[in-house]
């Protein structure tokens, strides 16, 4: 068989399926009561019944089907598109589901406390944190920001350090208060500041600059050159002096 024959057979099959479906649906429909004028079809010789007056028809109906009652066996014209008589189970379910979903959306977006927390946003965000180096967290009502490194959380001691190490506010995951108590806290992360025209290096700590006396002190504190951030000398001078590193070596030199 070639493709053309196949296509024709396919179309014939389609028509057959359609016809069967239509007949099945017609059979499923309840039989309508015979119209009053059908009394004329009574068997001959039967008792003569008074003819009931025909029901009042709208003018349009009369115009459209003037002899419908006289031709009860005439096949109704098959409509090209016949929908289900009413919403069936799946359609009803879809409608109800949509409605239920709408109600659920409204409910989960209603604030449940004075902070505006809704059911949809009530789950603490720490519940599904992935602990990898570089994870930055902040407790909800605390200002300190910590970064996860080598199995410990380390406090980022200043905004300079935060920026120096390339973090952004978008990195910060807000967690519930007390979250960090469950984990080991490592040494804080400081940034070292230096300006171009000065040989001195300072460690920014608690808003104060702490002069690092020499290379030995630098290395003893575990710093590396990558920790050094270059800033302007005027900014460095504007920072208040803190205790030197190591402590007690006299007044620190100014940059």
């Amino acid at each position, binding site marked *: 068989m070639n*493709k053309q024959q196949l296509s024709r057979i396919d179309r014939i099959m389609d028509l057959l399926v359609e016809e069967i*479906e239509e007949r099945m649906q017609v059979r499923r429909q309840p039989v309508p009561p015979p119209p009053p004028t059908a009394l004329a079809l009574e068997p001959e010789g039967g008792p003569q019944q008074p003819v009931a007056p025909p029901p009042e028809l709208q003018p349009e109906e009369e115009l459209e089907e003037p002899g419908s009652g006289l031709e009860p066996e005439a096949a109704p014209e098959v409509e090209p*598109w016949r929908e289900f008589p009413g919403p069936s189970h799946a359609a009803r379910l879809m*409608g109800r589901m949509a409605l239920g979903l709408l109600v659920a959306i409204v409910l989960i977006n209603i604030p449940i406390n004075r902070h505006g927390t809704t059911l949809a*946003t009530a*789950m603490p965000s720490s519940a*599904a944190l*992935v602990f990898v180096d570089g994870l930055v967290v902040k407790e909800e009502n605390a200002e300190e920001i910590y970064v996860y490194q080598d199995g410990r959380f380390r406090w980022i001691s200043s905004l300079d350090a935060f920026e120096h190490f390339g*973090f*952004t506010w978008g990195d910060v995951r807000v967690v519930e208060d007390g979250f960090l108590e469950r984990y080991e806290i490592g040494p804080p992360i400081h940034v070292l500041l230096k300006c171009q025209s000065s040989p001195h290096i300072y460690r920014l700590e608690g808003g104060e600059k702490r002069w690092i006396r020499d290379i030995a002190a630098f290395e003893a504190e575990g710093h590396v050159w990558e920790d050094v951030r270059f800033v302007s000398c005027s900014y460095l001078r504007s920072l208040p002096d803190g205790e030197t590193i190591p402590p007690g070596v006299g007044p620190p030199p100014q940059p």
Partner: protein
Amino acid sequence: MNHMAIIETILRNRRRFFIEIRDGVELAPKMRAMLVSSIIFFALYGAVMGSTHSLWQALSSAAKLPVLFLATLVVCSPTLYFFNLIFGSNQSLMQNFALILTAIVVTAVLLLSFAPIVLFFLLTTSHYQFFKLLNVGVFAIAGIVGVLFLTQGMGVVSAGGKEGASARRTVVRLWILIYAFVGSQMAWTLRPFIGAPSMEFELFRQLGGNFYANILVSIGEILGFVTVR
């Protein structure tokens, strides 16, 4: 509920539905029903997605998700129509439009059916990347089933055309790829739909990056390889 009955016909008796599209039987009411239903279903699913961030995000996503699909439909329909025309199709643009709309409404119905599951995860977990990938998965499943309907519909509707049937099948397959690319880029342009928890609500985010790179990074973070910055 008339619209719902038409949608049910698509799901239960799609062959008949496609034959009627082929014969051009009452295309306008069918298309209206599909359009209205898909807008409602997409809006509901969008609202579920956005609820994870805020009420504003829910409203924004409810408006943007129907726009995403319908804009993709408008952008991609002429390509399918003209390529089919070149390869001997006798369908009208309206018939093409109705067929693609069928795929979209199937996608919308499936998204609606997935909505309770997504809602469940929304209430029980707060991991942004997981939620994002969950939605990508849901969209992928719904989209694939939708385009399967389209392929099937195209087969039925263009069965009458004698010339270039195999070429038209190839055109449909290639068009589905284009549709996926355009759709993903449209989604990237209209983002955010979920809203990163650490960021304030924004109607549209700055362009930059692309959909596929972002999904790979999300998978990386879920598996613990990278931290998204």
